[in-house]
């Protein structure tokens, strides 16, 4: 079957708004925040022009955005929202409740630094602070991936083995506002792919009423959390199944990560989202010079596919994990500490070092990436890393 597809030039936010339009959810409750705002604006226009029949609730805060989305989802609606930065921080309390209720909400998060100081540009401090909320997290390198991930996320979230909310993350301004060429799927294809939502319990079932959100004391609380943890584990295989199905309709393949010249790479950079694009450029350049360098771009970090990541990096001699968020552990960023911990049982471990980079939208160019590979080369020659955690490109 020839794949039907349409090439367009769109910003990341426009692409994501179009993915949501094609999903045409029952309810959207959203609040504007830079750099997510266009999504809400585009969607408001879709509603105003009758292109979708979504019930849109223009709430008075992100806390209420997530609360209303939860209310709608518990009522049996397919419900979505989108946010960034302070907005995600404000809805933090409700993130736990969405997952605790096992509601399949999909939320694009346009990554932006969290205050203070206030800053509107990209880093990952917003979503990194939400890693323990019971949401799946899928990261996107560019507009195409953000579009594709939103569509896949709907299916992953609603899978009866999962029933957990999903964040689809992409970089503020870099991806959200830059115009890229990408391929949109036909409306009907997306509609068929996401299918009908069949909730397990709903507030509108008056024949067998359900109580959502009771007080659960120590006698049952652990059991309910254990169920949630099981669902997160189950999400691992569902993510791959949905990716395989998605490849059939799009021709684009997704997994837990993307490897770039990884197979025989000795020096590897691990980095999320748009910076991976920059890193690919440098990998090409260095490969042309005969350097054994490679890239691993994790796509999914909740659940954390530890075994697969370890396997992917098992041939590497030195690994630089680049975190776009300071977590103040003093032991490195979140991605670094988790990936490093994943190697604890591995028979062979590469040398590992961490870079905290790109905070508050600081550009990370090919020059910085080249410098990281140079550091790795020295580490490899020395047989040890000279510094575990480095703030990349910070003036002293």
């Amino acid at each position: 079957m020839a794949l039907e597809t349409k090439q367009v030039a769109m910003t990341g936010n426009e692409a994501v708004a179009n993915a949501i339009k094609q999903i045409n959810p029952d309810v959207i409750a959203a609040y504007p925040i830079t750099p997510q705002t266009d999504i809400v604006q585009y969607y408001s226009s879709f509603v105003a022009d009758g292109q979708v029949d979504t019930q849109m609730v223009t709430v008075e805060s992100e806390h209420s955005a997530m609360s209303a989305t939860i209310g709608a989802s518990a009522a049996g609606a397919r419900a979505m929202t989108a946010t960034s930065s302070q907005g995600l921080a404000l809805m933090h309390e409700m993130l736990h409740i969405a997952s605790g209720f096992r509601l399949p909400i999909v939320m694009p998060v346009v990554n932006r630094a969290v205050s203070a100081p206030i800053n509107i540009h990209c880093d990952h401090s917003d979503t990194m602070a939400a890693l323990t909320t019971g949401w799946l997290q899928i990261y996107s390198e560019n507009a195409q991936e953000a579009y594709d991930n939103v569509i896949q996320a709907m299916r992953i979230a609603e899978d009866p083995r999962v029933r957990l909310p999903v964040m689809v993350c992409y970089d503020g301004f870099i991806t959200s506002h830059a115009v890229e060429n990408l391929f949109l799927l036909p409306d009907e294809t997306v509609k068929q792919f996401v299918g009908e939502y069949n909730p397990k319990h709903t507030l509108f079932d008056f024949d067998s009423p359900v109580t959502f959100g009771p007080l659960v004391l120590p006698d049952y609380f652990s059991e309910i959390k254990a169920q949630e943890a099981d669902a997160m584990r189950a999400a691992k295989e569902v993510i791959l199944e949905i990716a395989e199905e998605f490849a059939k309709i799009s021709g684009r393949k997704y997994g837990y990560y993307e490897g770039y010249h990884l197979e025989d790479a000795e020096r590897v950079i691990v980095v999320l989202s748009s910076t991976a694009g920059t890193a690919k450029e440098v990998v090409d350049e260095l490969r042309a010079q005969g350097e054994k360098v490679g890239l691993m771009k994790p796509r999914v970090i909740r659940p954390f596919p530890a075994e697969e990541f370890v396997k992917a990096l098992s041939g590497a001699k030195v690994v630089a994990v680049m975190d776009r968020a300071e977590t103040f552990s003093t032991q490195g960023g979140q991605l670094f500490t988790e990936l490093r911990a994943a190697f604890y049982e591995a028979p062979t471990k590469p040398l590992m070092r961490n870079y905290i980079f790109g905070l508050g939208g600081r550009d990370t160019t090919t020059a910085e990436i080249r410098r990281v590979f140079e550091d790795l080369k020295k580490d490899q020659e020395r047989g040890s890393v000279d510094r575990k955690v480095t703030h990349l490109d910070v003036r002293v």
Partner: protein
Amino acid sequence: MSLKGYKDLPEGGVIPERGNSVLYKTGEWRSMKPVYYPEGCVHCLLCWAFCPEPAIKVENGRMLGIDYDHCKGCGICARECPRKEKALQMVRE
């Protein structure tokens, strides 16, 4: 009572039941209890309207007595009864 294992509980901590708290007997809390004298009752149902539980048994608009399984003995019914002690009287448990 053995509690259910985690795989047997409904997802998301929901309670897919209707008013099953009737199985929980709050009547044990009582230190005073209302005693009902049908012969003095005019079936105005104020006791029923003001009962917080509800623990006043009513059928076809007629007061039938107290649900002692749940009555906590607050005494609102006896206090608000227009027939006073002729229909409802609080006595020590």
